[in-house]
């Protein structure tokens, strides 16, 4: 195993104990993942394993073209296929005019706008019958030229106008017919910043559409109960914000009559299972047939949705001493429907404004930052949230630009970063307070660990070795309004957590228990989490945007505080002391420091067998201007406005170092050494390292390596795992060459200007290190062959040979 560095937790421990908590007895501990036994025995209740007797099965007929007119559709053979129960098209009353998330037709007719767009849904007694009927559907198309270039799409005179309806029409971009929406940041004096620059770099970077690559397909099973009520099991990262209302609306069932149940563990989501996309189809079909219906998106598992294709034009200026003077970034995002691209632009905007002071503070009053994002209709595949959406798209060009400036100025890659980092408490280019800025610590540590690699190894020609370094910022914006959880206290001393926020493999089931154990000072095995079910779980934010630890964690800590108050209130008269003079130790309630005057939970609660307390992470009205509340900002300048200044829930700062080997003859490449660092408090260092290595090296580098999504006139050629190359273990470094660094930021919780409403200063992790991967890898490739690759993914043989001028 490589190095596992974890910064000192001692100062934190004392502070926690002072505040009446266990003093890191259960937090910051390497607790085992509570899902372990179920996972290794095959007993996890994944949604794909839900089996309802008498269930019907489904299959879709999807467009194989990015842009085409449907000239005829004949479903008669499908309808006559033995075993077929129903054949739905866009003309079926159950589907007519039904839109998903604002602008996506559940089934389409007339014209298709992206490859894999669903046209027909077959419902049959068996999967085989549904498959056979799908083959028997006859669709004739008139194929048209697809618009797949987002830069051309946002032109004043684009090659083609793909849609006419717009979700939002900003007044001054109305002349761009494909543009759905625009986002802006205007800060400082951008012209002066460039006029003062000694060096200016102008480049264009592409972040390709990348499928999530989860291997277990997203499924939903709906069961009608004959009385107007329905149960829907769906493989999701949450059940509340999207899956529940969208399924209810599609099937025209009141939400109160639709009960949505999530899996024990979501079988890999990566953002792609945020919405429970098959849910509406299952609910509609179940209502229509009166039978249970299972829908699996297994015919387009890879291309169900992707990260949006983004072309980023970037211009950056710096003084000869390395101080940044200005940056101008333009995003060009292409998407067939608007659904998630708006969030992508929003998150990209925040990520760009937090790490560096573009417009150095001793030169200008305000950072000189200009950010413009165009979101345009295109015939690329449907887009959806994807690990750190908007952030990888911004951090790849942003951090690569920093490395390019360093190279041009002959500066060290760490030195130029340290010179320009934003400081704790400063205002960002969006006029937002920067908090939890842990860049300096984590960048220095990762750089120091990279230096410890020593000189580069000598390798036989034509192989060459390169090393890269990058920083990055990932910001999270959870649902800062709706976070309510319940704790059920049993007189046996057991606590049940009743909350959404699915465990998607990141360890939320474990971390939630650790928070309760820490706050209540009880063993982790005395805490459980109940099945996630809309029947009794309150509306909670979901496991997305690396926000669950912060969002749900705080609601859990709040509930635990309330639970303790309740227990103390009941125990005080029984112990002959006041409630304020009590503490919980190992599941007992005792007078502070006097274990001899103690009482069990059961006796404290008697005669009540159980009770329920609630906790929340909500934002009170009338909060002060610098309150950590949900943000509002000026549409045209991106500037944060009162009364709430906080656009961002928490900022996450990372660093990565890579060593790669490149074969200059064949274009082969491999990653040989890697360090991932994060500035977060480790609620569970084992799980955090799992996120840094798994989500950072393996997932992040996978995105940056070979995963090219190849289109031919809007038709995707890389539809399955055979044609779309996901790296295997053999493409990655061996155990001893994988290192991690966790450098906690204490100012977050105990500093002069602490965050409130966060669980002991913990912030969400997971996507953080992921988004730094492409810039780190591209830097290492540059170090090896002297060429900057401005495309993610960057490591295919084709890309390397192109860079070497040999393609």
């Amino acid at each position, binding site marked *: 195993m490589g190095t596992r560095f974890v910064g000192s937790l001692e100062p934190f421990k004392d502070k926690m104990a002072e505040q009446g908590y266990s003093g890191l007895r259960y937090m910051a501990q390497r607790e085992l993942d509570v899902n372990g036994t179920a996972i290794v025995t095959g007993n996890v209740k994944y949604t794909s394993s839900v089996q309802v007797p008498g269930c019907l099965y489904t299959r879709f007929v999807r467009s194989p073209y990015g842009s085409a007119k449907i000239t005829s559709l004949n479903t008669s053979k499908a309808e006559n296929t033995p075993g077929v129960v129903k054949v739905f098209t866009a003309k079926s009353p159950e589907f007519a005019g039904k839109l998903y998330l604002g602008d996506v037709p559940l089934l389409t007719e007339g014209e298709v706008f992206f490859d894999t767009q669903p046209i027909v849904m077959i419902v049959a007694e068996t999967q085989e019958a549904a498959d056979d009927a799908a083959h028997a559907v006859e669709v004739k198309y008139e194929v048209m030229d697809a618009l797949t270039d987002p830069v051309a799409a946002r032109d004043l005179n684009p090659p083609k106008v793909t849609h006419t309806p717009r979700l939002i029409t900003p007044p001054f971009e109305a002349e761009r017919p494909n543009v759905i929406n625009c986002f802006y940041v205007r800060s400082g004096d951008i012209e002066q910043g460039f006029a003062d620059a000694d060096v200016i770099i102008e480049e264009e970077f592409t972040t390709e559409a990348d499928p999530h690559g989860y291997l277990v397909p997203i499924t939903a099973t709906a069961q009608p109960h004959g009385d107007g009520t329905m149960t829907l099991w769906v493989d999701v990262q949450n059940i509340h914000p999207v899956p529940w209302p969208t399924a209810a609306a599609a099937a025209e069932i009141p939400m109160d009559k639709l009960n949505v149940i999530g899996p024990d563990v979501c*079988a890999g989501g990566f953002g792609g299972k945020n919405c429970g996309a098959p849910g509406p189809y299952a609910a509609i079909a179940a209502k229509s047939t009166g039978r249970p219906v299972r829908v699996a998106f297994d015919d387009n598992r890879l291309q169900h949705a992707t990260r949006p294709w983004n072309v980023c034009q970037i211009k950056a200026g710096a003084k000869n001493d390395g101080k940044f003077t200005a940056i101008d970034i333009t995003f060009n995002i292409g998407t067939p429907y608007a659904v998630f691209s708006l969030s992508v632009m929003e998150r990209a905007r925040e990520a760009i404004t937090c790490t560096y002071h573009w417009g150095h503070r001793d030169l200008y009053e305000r950072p000189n930052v200009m950010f413009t994002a165009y979101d345009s209709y295109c015939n690329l595949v449907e887009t959806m949230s994807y690990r750190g959406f908007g952030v990888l798209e911004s951090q790849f060009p942003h951090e690569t630009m920093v490395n390019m400036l360093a190279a041009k100025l002959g500066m060290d890659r760490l030195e130029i970063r340290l010179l320009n980092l934003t400081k704790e408490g400063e205002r960002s280019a969006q006029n937002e307070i920067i908090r939890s800025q842990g860049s300096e610590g984590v960048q220095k540590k990762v750089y120091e660990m990279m230096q410890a690699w020593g000189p580069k190894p000598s390798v036989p020609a034509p192989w060459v070795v390169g090393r890269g370094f990058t920083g990055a910022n990932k910001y999270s914006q959870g649902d800062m309004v709706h976070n309510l959880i319940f704790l059920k206290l049993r007189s046996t001393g057991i606590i049940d957590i009743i909350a959404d926020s699915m465990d998607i493999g990141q360890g939320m089931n474990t971390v939630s228990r650790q928070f309760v154990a820490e706050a209540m000072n009880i063993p982790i095995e005395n805490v459980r989490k109940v099945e996630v079910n809309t029947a009794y779980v309150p509306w909670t934010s979901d496991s997305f945007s690396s926000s669950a630890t912060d969002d749900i964690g705080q609601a859990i800590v709040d509930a635990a505080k309330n639970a303790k108050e309740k227990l103390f209130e009941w125990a005080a008269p029984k112990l002959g002391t006041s409630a304020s003079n009590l503490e919980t130790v190992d599941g007992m309630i005792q007078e502070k420091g006097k274990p001899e005057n103690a009482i069990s939970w059961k006796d404290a609660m008697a005669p009540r067998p159980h009770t329920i307390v609630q906790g929340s992470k909500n934002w009170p009205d009338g909060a002060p201007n610098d309150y950590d509340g949900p943000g509002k900002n000026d549409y045209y300048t991106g500037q944060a406005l009162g009364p709430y200044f906080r656009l961002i829930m928490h900022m996450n700062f990372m660093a990565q170092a890579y060593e790669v080997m490149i074969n200059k003859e064949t274009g082969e490449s491999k990653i040989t050494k890697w360090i991932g660092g994060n500035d977060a408090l480790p609620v569970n260092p084992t799980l955090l390292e799992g996120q840094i290595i798994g989500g950072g090296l393996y*997932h992040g580098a996978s995105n940056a390596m070979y995963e090219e999504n*190849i289109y031919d006139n809007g038709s995707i050629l890389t539809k399955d795992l055979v044609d779309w190359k996901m790296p295997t273990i053999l493409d990655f470094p061996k155990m001893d060459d994988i290192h991690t660094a966790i450098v906690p930021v204490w100012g977050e919780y105990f500093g002069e200007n602490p965050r409130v409403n966060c669980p002991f200063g913990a912030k969400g992790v997971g996507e953080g290190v992921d988004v730094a991967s492409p810039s780190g890898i591209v830097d290492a490739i540059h170090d090896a062959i002297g060429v900057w690759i401005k495309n993610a993914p960057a490591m295919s043989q084709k890309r390397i040979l192109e860079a070497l001028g040999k393609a």
Partner: protein
Amino acid sequence: MTEEKKPEKKGVSRRGFIQGAVAGLVVGAAATYGATTMMQPTTPAPPTTPTGEVVGPAEAKTITMTINGVTVMNSVKARWTLQKYIRDVVGLRGTPEACDNGACGNCTILKDGIPVLSCSMLAIDCAGADITTIEGLASGGTLSSIQQSFIKNTAFQCGGCTPGFILCGKALKDKKSSPSEDEVREAVSGVLCRCGTYERVVKAIMEA
């Protein structure tokens, strides 16, 4: 940003091939899935049982196999994959439904001690075989050493790929009790994990 390469075999997968054959033989319809011409199997080779008996794709045949030490006899359709049979007919759902394309290795099971992809093998071809799935490793409520090692090393995240890794690891350890890191990497290289738990999987297998 578009590629010049033409879509040569659009819509054809191993699953599509099996289904295409079925559509041609049973329904007699032209394969018009999404109006894309399927690769027409001109003379598709019908599956055969180990005795050489020819069985049509829609026909059923009663076969016997041993699954996790239990003898199981069922009527299976010739087109059913081993994965479908194990999950939907026998009801053992620990073998995940994953890429269904023979590419991710998550649905790996052991057939006569050898790791095979259950999504890419027909159930009818496994007549008489000794099958081990993830449910068959623990005995009498005690986890096998490899399962214990996976828990100890947190060698999973969402767990979708874990059965594939554990069974590949078991097959290797049954042959060689102390494999090297390179040998473990090679043995599990057919299993993909999108959460990225590879390093821990290798360690868990080596330490089991």
